[in-house]
């Protein structure tokens, strides 16, 4: 085998350039992109804090901007992006943690995802309820 001329000439196929734009990778690409939406929403909240610190006039302006139609549309789009981020992130959650073994049995990854989603929903609904109650008495 070692004698003679080798006809080996391995061919290197390039990776498809737009792999991230196609199934099954598109869901992953969107999940990562939605991280930008999370950061944007964080920036909006931070801007509110800065306005609060600068005084009454600045904070009133911030609230007027928030109440505008454009702002409502932006918030709807951000909400959709954050929801996608939450769902897809919790789908990958069981892959990022050690295997969960309860009573000598493996907890199925789907149960971990379902529990995390339920927790996120309960916490969000709870926070919303608290804000509404505080708003009603303010």
């Amino acid at each position, binding site marked *: 085998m070692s004698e003679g001329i080798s*006809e080996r000439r391995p061919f290197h196929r390039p990776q498809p350039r737009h792999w991230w734009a196609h199934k099954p990778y598109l869901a992953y690409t969107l999940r990562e992109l939605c991280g930008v939406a999370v950061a944007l929403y964080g920036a909006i909240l931070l801007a509110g804090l800065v306005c609060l610190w600068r005084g009454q006039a600045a904070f009133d302006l911030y609230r007027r901007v928030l109440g505008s139609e454009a702002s409502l549309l932006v918030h709807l789009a951000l909400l959709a992006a954050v929801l996608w981020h939450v769902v897809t992130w919790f789908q990958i959650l069981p*892959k990022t943690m050690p295997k969960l073994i309860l009573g*000598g*049995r493996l907890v199925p990854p789907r149960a971990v995802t379902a529990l995390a989603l339920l927790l996120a929903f309960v916490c969000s609904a709870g926070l919303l309820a608290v804000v509404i109650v505080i708003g009603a008495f303010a």
Partner: protein
Amino acid sequence: MSETMDRSKTIELRVLRYRPASDSEPVFVSYRVPYSDDMSVLQALQSIKDSQDGSLSFRWSCRMAICGSCGMMINGEPKLACNTFVRDLAPNAATIEPLQNFPIERDLVVTVGDFVKKIESIYPYIIPKVQKPIEEGAYLQTPAQMAAYESFSDCINCMLCYAACPQFGANPDFIGPGAMAMLQRYNADSRDGGRQLRLDQINGEDGVWSCTAVGICSEVCPKAVDPANAVNQNKTNSALDFFLRAVRPQAKPEPRS
């Protein structure tokens, strides 16, 4: 003749062929293959080799999804040819290509040398915590201890996860999902003491840190090994190892020579 034996139906298979002695680059060649309902893509390829073109090259051995030899891209998805039925692809034409992200040796045969080296690099055997003579009996383990690594021990080295991994496609030196599943199979084993030795192999960009949690490796795995879990658990382990390096004891278990 029963319905399943009826071979009056045919399917067009577009096979990516590369003959290094004569082709400058791979080209698609079409074959029309009679098939029955119980026929796998591997059997269809074998029928091409038997009756149409004896020079068509592909790897196979067990025909029952346990040897991991016949991985290929079927309609763009990494699959085992023996585990994919022709009836599920028909009546449309189907494309058959060698595994993505690997150099092509010839037709559907890819180069596996780098993958084997990666497997070797992570000490793929148990390095006992405590060496004991045979007279003292077996190393015991509870079902719960076994559940911690069992899925990872199901890996058949078929490399479908590598073909599905865009980060391995971008960086061929990335240790990749399969080798990490193997690593976790031993690191999570209660009888093993070689954890530090293996962790030393996977720090850095070519180790776990090329992974961006795409997760498709686990979806294409024919054995439900969940290699993405193995990689991502070890990001935590690798990070902890980085910060605890200064305080951990330096004694290492001796590898098997």
